[in-house]
């Protein structure tokens, strides 16, 4: 059967139940959670790519400060990928072709940025541009890349399938959530073309800097309001879906861990995002209506006394921002943990060790993540009592993480481990998250934070958790669930090249950051610290990291080719290629509109692999007990 020519057609197949729906209702303003999931996925991957492209240029400036950027290279790279993708898609009207075009669009964006004489005279990146690239890299990666991919894409596509639901509880809301996200993304991209460029006050947008910044900041705020709204709609939908639409027999403790992760994540999104929305509105007021929420009295900016009422506080912004942003970082990691757990269970062919411990830990983690935020603010003049409180909560929150990782490690014991591409990424995730997490500890203790705060040690810390951590988990998820979307598997050889290449490069990028951090090199330095005596000893590392980053980019090409090539020419597979136990594999492939041919019944816990006396080495949740 070749109904799976491209994801485009795949969607077509998925929607064949309602032929009456026209193209627009089917692919564009679709209310089918699977189509929306794919929309989220593609958009998010493209944003990851854009965020990455920005960073590739920044890394040039860091490695060779003040030297003209080899613009052609940075334009040609996305352009080449675009062309390759188009070739893979054979220019037929299909998702592949669309993405190819969008890659070319990225190239065009880069081209516009590097040829802007006001921000890049003679091809030399100015601090303005470096700062706005930095801010946008952070924003895009977090809010437009990883969260939409982990929650919007994986959550949307997989959760309803895994709980045996026909769709999300509120399909219209689901669509609205995607289009809010889309609008937010467009606003963010548009801001690159504004006078003064995009927002340039860091992804943290600390006031007063952000309040007095160029108009790009206003767009950043508007974009954030859209993105937050999107996440709110999404989270309401997820929680209701998981609580209300679980199929018969699927009790909470029979939920796949991935669903648990998404469940807790949704609560974080639901309750942590609104404060930033409020803060965003207040900063908009400060910028547009001249209020002084975040502006203290007596500001003198570049010799001019600001004429504002004053009486505000810069710390207020920080509190509201971090009240969101710390839970946010767990939003970045929990779905990743969920994916990893699924894949490890499946490829060790045995149940997850300590499933309940995992569940309780993740709930506890979610709860605690609301009361640790001020560990980002130790050096804002915090007193002993409060700092003691936040240090304690920060240390407490590391315990569930330890438990989760330990459980995953012990799950390997006694397994029969298959080293396929998804498993490789999932396994690599563990030590990488380990490094990232462990380096969180010295940051979490106020006295050691004094030396490390706002240095590259921090950058190293969180990139280990988000890049070789979350990004790897997401790659793993793509390789793992791809057959469910298309009925074909991705190419193993290309996959393994992609894995080993990325694995090595990631460590060469982020490990040196700890060294620079210990030396005291500040982050967000336009010249990578070249002017500072204390940085001299570790400056040479900048070049190492940059080269590694560029090589990493090359290795992503294998992934992109693999992804699109496999849609057409991948090896065809059955409905359950990995011999997995969870419900998503009970559907036809790709799942039709409404997902299940008949309402599934669940008989057992999610990871019943290698049950003694059972014929096969896996016992699906939906396989009836034989009397």
């Amino acid at each position, binding site marked *: 059967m070749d109904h799976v020519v491209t994801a485009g057609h795949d969607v077509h197949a998925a929607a064949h139940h309602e032929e009456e729906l026209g193209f627009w209702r089917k692919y564009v303003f679709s209310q089918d959670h699977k189509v929306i999931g794919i929309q989220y996925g593609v958009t998010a991957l493209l944003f990851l790519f854009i965020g990455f492209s920005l960073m590739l240029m920044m890394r040039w400036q860091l490695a060779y400060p003040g030297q003209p950027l080899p613009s052609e290279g940075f334009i040609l790279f996305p352009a080449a990928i675009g062309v390759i993708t188009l070739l893979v898609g054979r220019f037929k009207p299909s998702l592949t072709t669309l993405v190819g075009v969008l890659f070319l669009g990225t190239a065009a964006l880069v081209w516009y940025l590097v040829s802007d004489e006001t921000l890049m005279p003679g091809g030399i990146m100015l601090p303005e541009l470096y700062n706005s690239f930095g801010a946008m890299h952070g924003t895009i990666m977090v809010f437009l890349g990883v969260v939409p991919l982990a929650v919007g894409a994986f959550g949307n596509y997989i959760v309803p399938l895994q709980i045996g639901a026909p769709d999300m509880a509120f399909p219209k809301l689901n669509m609205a959530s995607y289009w809010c996200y889309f609008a937010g993304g467009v606003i963010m991209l548009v801001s690159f073309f504004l006078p003064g460029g995009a927002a340039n006050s860091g992804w943290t947008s600390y006031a007063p800097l952000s309040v007095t910044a160029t108009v790009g900041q206003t767009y950043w705020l508007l974009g954030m309001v859209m993105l937050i709204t999107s996440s709110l709609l999404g989270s309401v939908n997820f929680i209701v879906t998981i609580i209300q639409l679980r199929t018969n027999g699927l009790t909470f403790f029979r939920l796949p861990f991935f669903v648990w992760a998404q469940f807790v994540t949704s*609560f974080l999104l639901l*309750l942590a995002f609104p*404060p930033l929305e409020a803060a965003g509105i207040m900063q908009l007021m400060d910028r547009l209506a001249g209020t002084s929420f975040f502006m203290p009295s007596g500001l003198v900016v570049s010799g001019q006394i600001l004429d504002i009422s004053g009486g505000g506080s810069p710390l207020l912004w920080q*509190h509201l921002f971090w009240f969101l942003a710390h839970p946010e970082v767990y939003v970045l990691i929990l779905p990743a943990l969920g994916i990893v757990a699924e894949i490890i269970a499946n490829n060790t062919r045995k149940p997850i060790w300590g499933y309940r411990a995992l569940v309780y830990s993740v709930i506890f983690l979610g709860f605690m993540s609301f009361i640790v935020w001020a560990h980002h603010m130790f050096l804002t003049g*915090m*007193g002993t009592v*409060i700092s003691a409180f936040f240090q304690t909560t920060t240390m407490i929150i590391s315990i569930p993480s330890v438990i989760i990782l330990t459980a995953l490690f012990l799950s390997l014991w006694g397994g029969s481990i298959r080293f396929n591409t998804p498993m490789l990424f999932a396994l690599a995730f563990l030590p990488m998250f380990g490094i990232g997490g462990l380096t969180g500890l010295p940051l979490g203790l106020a006295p050691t934070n004094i030396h490390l705060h706002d240095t590259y040690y921090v950058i190293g810390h969180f990139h280990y958790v988000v890049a070789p951590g979350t990004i790897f988990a997401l790659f793993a998820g793509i390789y793992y669930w791809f057959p469910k979307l298309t009925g074909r598997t991705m190419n193993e050889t290309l996959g393994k090249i992609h894995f080993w290449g990325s694995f090595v490069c990631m460590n060469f990028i982020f490990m040196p950051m700890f060294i620079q951090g210990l030396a005291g090199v500040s982050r967000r330095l336009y010249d990578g610290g070249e002017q500072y005596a204390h940085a001299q000893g570790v400056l040479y590392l900048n070049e190492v990291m940059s080269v590694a980053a560029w090589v990493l980019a090359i290795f992503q090409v294998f992934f992109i080719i693999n992804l699109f090539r496999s849609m057409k020419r991948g090896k065809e597979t059955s409905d359950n290629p990995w011999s997995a136990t969870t419900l998503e594999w009970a559907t036809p492939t790709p799942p039709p509109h409404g997902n299940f041919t008949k309402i599934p019944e669940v008989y057992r816990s999610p990871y019943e692999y290698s049950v003694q006396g059972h014929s096969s080495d896996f016992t699906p949740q939906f396989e009836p007990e034989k009397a």
Partner: protein
Amino acid sequence: MSGTSVEEIKKHVRTYILVFVALMALTIVTVAVSYLHLSVGWAIAVALFIATIKGSLVAGFFMHLISEKKLIYATLILTFVFFIALMILPTSGYLDKVVK
């Protein structure tokens, strides 16, 4: 709520009227109190106290919270905990700050 008999609803309606009266009365009281110009501390205490009562009335009867499902309670309690954290922690950080 669906599936409640007409009689019960009639009872409900009576309570709604009572609640309405109570709310009006309390509104008048707060305003009246504000004219006493109490010391800030007391003023805040009283005003918030009355507001809380009014709020609970609305939530309890108009929003049927007194007879709601456990799940809703759970959600709201969770929210309330974080709400309190949000209200208290930032400011307490301020008070604890070393002011020498």
